[in-house]
């Protein structure tokens, strides 16, 4: 399932400067794994030692926080957009 992963600028430099990168997989975790296979230096930035997202990094599948949708196990569909953002302070 091809999806587009939108990277923050600090990570785009590790993906040949691309802010939006296509990836494939049946789930969010598989799509992230596909991304990190092609850009290995992203791996430790996106996934912790336990294979989970870091607490200070949030993944949104389209507009939904993946923690409400099954985490890395959330299923993706063609054309989905996975957005990675860092945590933001209160307001």
């Amino acid at each position, binding site marked *: 399932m091809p999806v587009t992963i939108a990277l923050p600028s600090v990570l785009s430099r590790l993906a040949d400067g691309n802010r939006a990168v296509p990836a494939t997989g049946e789930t969010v975790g598989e799509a992230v794994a596909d991304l990190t296979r092609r850009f290995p230096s992203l791996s430790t930035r996106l996934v912790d030692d336990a294979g989970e997202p870091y607490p200070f990094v949030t993944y949104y599948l389209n507009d939904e926080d993946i923690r409400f949708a099954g985490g890395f196990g959330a299923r993706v569909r063609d054309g989905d957009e996975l957005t990675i953002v860092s945590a933001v302070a209160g*307001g």
Partner: protein
Amino acid sequence: MSAPALDISRPVTRSAPGERVSPLPLICTNCGARFDPDPAAICLSCLGPLVPEYDSARSLPDRATISRRAPSLWRYREWLPFVGTPSLSPDSGFTPLVEAPALARRLGVARAWVKNDAVSHPTLSFKDRVVATAINAARAFGLDVVGCASTGNLANAVAAHAARAGLEAWIFVPFDLELAKVLGTSVYAPNLVRVRGTYDDVNRLCAQVADSFGWGLVNVNLRAYYGEGSKTMAFEIVEQLGWRTPTAVVAPMAGGALVTKLHRGFREFAEAGLASDDLPRIHGAQAAGCAPIVRLVERGGGRLVPEVPSTIARSLAIGNPADGLTAARAITETGGWAAAVSDPEIVDGIRLLAETTGIFAETAGGVTTAAAVQLAREGRLRPDDELVLCITGNGLKTLDPLADSLPEAPVITPHLRAVAALVERRDGAAISHQPSAIN
């Protein structure tokens, strides 16, 4: 292999950097990587949050020196993230610490005080503190545009401080924000944008906006400098208590930064020899309809579970709090606890605070007061406690929740007999009168 439609980056436009202030360099709280001063909040190595790195050998003032300085948060400037003299927002902070004996009796503690940021200058919330530091960072970095994601109080503060500094402001809020907070922002003529979604949706958008437009969003890419302003609430409490620490503090939690920075502030003053080493027990307060940090404290462990907020305490309605983990850690390390209160309890809390102290707080203050009542009921406050409640916003900003809970004032003809009838009725009712607030 990119999809260029998503890439809307614009070149960052900046004025010549300000000359008076140099922001401190940054260090990652996760991996320890160090960075030059920059409007950046996340680590290039691990995406962890950055904080300013202070020179441990810097010269620190003594109590007498601090006491002689102007009554603003800048009297603690050695603990704020700059070298030099800040030029913007010189008069925020140093709000009253009001002793509250009637409230102390109700809570069963020895003494109680209210740290009253409901009268903060200029926008009546503690957000004036954090914006004061963030806007000086923006000026120092030469950023021409500032902004924020906000649940209301921060919107008011960024708009006001930016107007005074002559900076353009872009402010993003949930579309259904309270009218008082919308008008209290619009009046300063910023670019105010209402986003169809929750605050967490606004946050996500602003993370992308800061990344793409190069603006100084105070709680996004200026977050490292912004957060330091919150420490001044702890500094002021210590100084205003006669250079003593209270034994317990209750503070509201939204993103969790205030509790985190209170802990840090008390610790820094202890390390500087300005206060005792006995840190207060820090108790955190949230609305039951949005209490991810309370539930983390209750559950233990290191993984916060986000929530979809549903509460009248809109200023605390952050379901995915960025500083939730560090706030929970501050609470448990100090021997404190966390309490979640219902919407009716929040209204009762607003009324109890008003009736016992004369201070009118917004819903967040109702959360704090009601949480203190709950903590007292659970035995987590002690008879010998010296307690400070951190009241962070003004009740005039959130009138709606009170509309149905207060008695309607009688309408009379302009005659003395009408007043006499009211007094007679009141005297009769007083025999069985019970305070309306929490018992």
